């Protein structure tokens, strides 16, 4: 199955070369997707533990702290790396 991936916030630049979607095995979980995503990113640029995670518009937690979640074909995985004001 394919899952669309969007990385925004502080991490958007290292994610420039990412494919628009990840190809995952049926029944893949959010953690599977995060592991696959890390393999596509430059070394040391995987989303940090405090990066917010949402799947198809629903907030699940952070990269470091989220409940198990099984992905579905066509899901959109959104990662929002920390931002601040100023």
């Amino acid at each position, binding site marked *: 199955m394919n899952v669309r991936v*969007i990385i925004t916030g502080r991490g958007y630049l290292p994610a420039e070369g990412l494919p628009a979607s990840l190809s995952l095995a049926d029944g893949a979980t959010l953690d599977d997707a995060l592991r696959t995503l890390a393999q596509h990113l430059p070394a040391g640029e995987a989303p940090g533990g405090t990066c917010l995670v949402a799947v198809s*518009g629903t907030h699940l937690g952070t990269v470091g702290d989220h409940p198990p979640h099984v992905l579905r074909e066509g899901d959109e995985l959104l990662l929002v790396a920390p931002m601040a*004001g*100023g």
Partner: protein
Amino acid sequence: MRELLPEEQERYARQIGPGVLSSEGQVRLKRAAALVARTGGMGGPAAMVLVMAGVGRVIIAHGGRLISPDLNRQTLGSEEGVGLPRADAFAQRLRSLNRFVTVETIDHEPDDAEAEALARRVDVILSCAPSFAERLRLNRAALAAGVPLIDAAQWGMCGSLVVVRPRQTACLRCLYPQQPEFEELFPVVGGISSAVGSLAGLEAIKILSRTGQPMYGQLWSIDGYHGRTSIVNLRRDPRCPCCGDASPAGDAPS
């Protein structure tokens, strides 16, 4: 309820009517008070939006003196203002926009006690602060006072808004159980600062005037670099030390 002066009715004529504010909503704005914590790239435009719209009392908090690198995004700044205390210079600019509004200044970053005291004097808090410590402090103050919090953030050409209805929707601490590490100086382009700040101001106007649908419980991610936006429905964390079921007193300062 204080009525609008004829001059105020003339000033706000373009924002009173179908699809915008009702006359009652405009009066609610006049009666309302807002705290804008940091009035730089995002908070400056947010404060401008509030002042121009007629929010009766706008309290701005910003320390330090204006420096040249501020001027790529801080719309309340000016070449003439470089070297001057930001709070005073910014307040002068805001007052020049609308004589019907009171602008108060705090010339430093409020600590926990002051933040909570300020929160109890206002009807909404706009957090446009550059550090997570300050943002989470404002989050705690908003929860303690029971006033809505609008958190605006940015990095590079991206920004985000989170609108919190205390103890009903996710608070900032629900989103960040662990305080992220964040650099003091980070890249940012003024266009995204102004856009996110103005939208934060719009959310405040909606809340204060009871107009439209505030984005309570949602995160609005605006990726200007790629030209796309996303809206996320946020999950309130029942274990949250700040607003969770077992935390009537709020969490401890970070």
